């Protein structure tokens, strides 16, 4: 390890007297410059008179200032978690893959992580069930051997044991004081197909401007697209906020064995620090390529339970070295490539029948109740 970093260098973060969290504030900007245009995520319209769709921009009625969501917590997690497939990080965690026909799905790409139905309906199903049951009994070791990043990004085994573990790492990107822009465009076919008698002039007139018309859909007529989303300019800057919840790691146990518990916590802390210090992907979507703003340095602090904030410094390379050592001490689970099990899936559907395959209405109601509480 690099000088100064030892296996116990971060044990004070794992002590119940230690800091509650590490928080990063990182100022970004479009590659075009601070006044460049960036395209936030768009969202569908809500039913009724609510959200009309488009960018998620909230305005403070007291000050008139606004904030736009550029990349949500869930989206950031989906970008960061797959780094553990890369060669540089792959040895830190077991590489678990489920095959189904020609498709291979890595656990890092499964939407619900270790709780994903695809994994449950594979040869790993029983192992995962036992691991989740062990979590409920106070031992996260088995789960950390199969799916340690599920402990970093959070997991809920919603279709079986109901075991839930909160996320340790959360990251989101927002833009402040944005000005919305619009754009217009027009598709022009290369030739006049009506004059080539592919269809009549009347049919052409009817189709032009109607993007539901088959001729318009197939590119045979002019189709304007006017006053659509044209991105935003962030006059107040763009900021990525990331939080590493140390208190959450301290709630992980390996049963009653204190030395194994320490090894488990160091392992998960190592993975979390790697993910936390990783330069998250800068290409978010078409029109949204963000880089660090050199005029506004990163703010990285430890937050104590008292609210006191102290500077925190850790390079990504040091985080990786610590993680490697912690992984070696803990013992990384073995890689597994397992097939999807059709019979398990059928059994999963029939055992519990409608209750499992159609929990949506009841589940939604429960979510509403849970959210209300």
């Amino acid at each position, binding site marked *: 390890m690099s000088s100064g970093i030892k296996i116990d260098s971060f044990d004070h973060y794992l002590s119940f007297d230690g800091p509650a969290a590490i928080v990063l504030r990182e100022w970004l900007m479009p590659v075009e410059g601070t006044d460049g245009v960036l395209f936030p995520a768009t969202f569908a319209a809500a039913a009724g008179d609510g959200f009309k769709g488009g960018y998620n921009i909230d305005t403070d009625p007291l000050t008139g200032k606004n904030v736009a969501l550029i990349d949500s*917590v869930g989206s950031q997690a989906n970008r960061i978690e797959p780094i553990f497939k890369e060669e540089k990080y792959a040895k830190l965690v077991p590489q678990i893959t489920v095959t189904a026909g020609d*498709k291979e799905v890595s656990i890092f790409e*499964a939407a*619900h992580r270790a709780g994903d139905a695809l994994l449950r309906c594979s040869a790993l199903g029983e192992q995962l069930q036992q691991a989740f049951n062990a979590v409920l009994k106070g031992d996260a070791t088995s789960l950390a051997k199969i799916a340690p990043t599920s402990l970093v990004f959070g997991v809920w085994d919603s279709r*079986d044991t109901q075991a839930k573990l909160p996320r340790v790492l959360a990251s989101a990107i927002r833009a402040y004081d944005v000005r919305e822009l619009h754009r217009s465009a027009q598709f022009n076919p290369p030739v006049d197909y009506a004059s080539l008698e592919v269809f009549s002039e009347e049919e052409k007139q009817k189709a032009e401007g109607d993007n539901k018309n088959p001729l318009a859909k197939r590119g045979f007529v002019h189709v304007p697209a006017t006053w659509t989303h044209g991105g935003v300019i962030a006059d107040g800057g763009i900021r990525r*906020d990331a*939080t590493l919840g140390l208190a959450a790691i301290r*709630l992980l146990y390996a049963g009653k064995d204190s030395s194994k518990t320490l090894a488990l916590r160091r392992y998960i802390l190592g993975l979390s620090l790697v993910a936390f210090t990783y330069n998250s992907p800068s290409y978010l979507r078409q029109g949204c390529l963000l880089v660090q703003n050199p005029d506004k340095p990163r703010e990285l602090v430890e937050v104590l339970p008292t609210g006191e904030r102290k500077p925190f410094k850790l390079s990504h390379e040091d985080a990786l070295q610590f993680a490697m050592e912690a992984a070696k001490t803990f013992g990384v689970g073995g890689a597994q490539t397992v097939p*999807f099990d059709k019979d398990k899936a059928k059994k999963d559907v029939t055992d519990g029948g409608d209750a499992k395959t159609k929990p949506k209405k009841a589940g939604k109601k429960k979510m509403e109740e849970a959210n209300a509480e």
Partner: protein
Amino acid sequence: MPSNLVFTFRFLQPFSHGRGEGGEPEWPLSPLRLYQSLVSASAGRWNERHQLIYAVPALEWLASLQPPEVVAAAGIASDVPTQFYVPDNTTELLVPSWKRGEVDKTPKRTEKVVRPTHLLDDTLHYLYVLPEGQCEHLETLKAVARSITHLGWGIDMVAADANIVSQPDADKLPGHRWHVVPQGGVPLRVPKAGTLQDLMRKHQDFLDRISGDGFKPVPPLREFDVRQYHSDTAPRTTSIQRPFAAFRLMSPSGEGNSAFRLLTGTRDVAGMMRNLLGETSRRFDIPHDEIETFIHGHRGKDAPVRGDAADRRLMFLPLPTISAYQNRVQAIRRVLVVGPIGSGRIMRQIQIRLGGEFLTHHGQPRAMLEQLSSDGVLKHYTGTSAVWSTVTPCVFPGHHKGDLEKGNELAYRMFTDAGLPQPVELAWRSVGFRPGAELANRYQRPHHMNGSMYHLRVRFPRPLQGPLVLGAGRYRGFGLFAAESSLP
């Protein structure tokens, strides 16, 4: 010497997603939510995942205390809910498609509505009074608090702590102070004796909800109380607008509007509307034993509801037209039915199911209701503004008998009773502040409605969203305000 046990939360991102009654954004977060987070953290801290043991005495003691005062950063709810689409946990259903070579198919997505509260600062404190200044459970509760990782949704990460704080130091905590009031205000859930056992029951039911016998719905939490919380200073904006149903008053034949005179129409239209709701109450999801209180505001003959439940009732607000060019108050051609916070579903039912119904007087139809979603007149009453003035006079909660100071005291009390912040400017008089508003004592009111009547004009420290109605007659349309200048 009294002091306070203070639980402090620092939000590590400037948002909170916690929801309260009716799924609306909740801020401040309820004391019950604090309690639930302590219970959950206790399980994690001492690794007691099946049965809490270590922290039980401390948690039971905490639930026995009086509800805390809350000191909170300002929170502004998002303007509108945003629809996210998150993948359903049904990936296995895609496998047949994948095997056919359709490898680009992705899991079905389910809707998730997100509406955060933006926080203008990061702190939230819960202050429990310790009359003797002592807390034998401090070490345990401190350890539990420091193990709390989230408050609200799973993305609302916090750093928490617990301390004993002297009263002078507690008074200096920065933020908006929310305290329990007899009526009005914002309803927040609070724990009580029995809450801990009910939480443990619910947790076990949740773990057992899916089994070989199928899906067993989890009964909601039952053992908690609701208290009305009020802050004199916290900004009120879109986050706590009361839900309402609006109607235009048409002639009984449906041809043209019905217009009711200003001086008698408030009393008459409110009365007819209330009677109609009473007659049609079975069409709505109002629990049978709550109909009398919810619609009529009393339990039994001549027994008005008082205390915590007094504000959990409908308001019937006839709306005078306000002309577009002169802002002149005119006849009544619309009516608003306003429900308490959390009654959004019932109000939507009222809006839908009463369209086409008749307001009657002694059996004779006087107007037909036409659903009204939005128009220029309605916006005068439901818009956002810092300055408001009455179109119908307020009924003061008493008589001042010429004593101006007493009159002012009664006037300001109306804001507290309605759970509103105190205004920074307030004027009251018999003459209206708006063209077209009649002299206050000329308005005909129901017989039982006592108290002096005056018109008011107020300026709040921050814009409020309507509808705004004050005074002892506020459930029957008296004390109705219109915005003097609405924000866009």
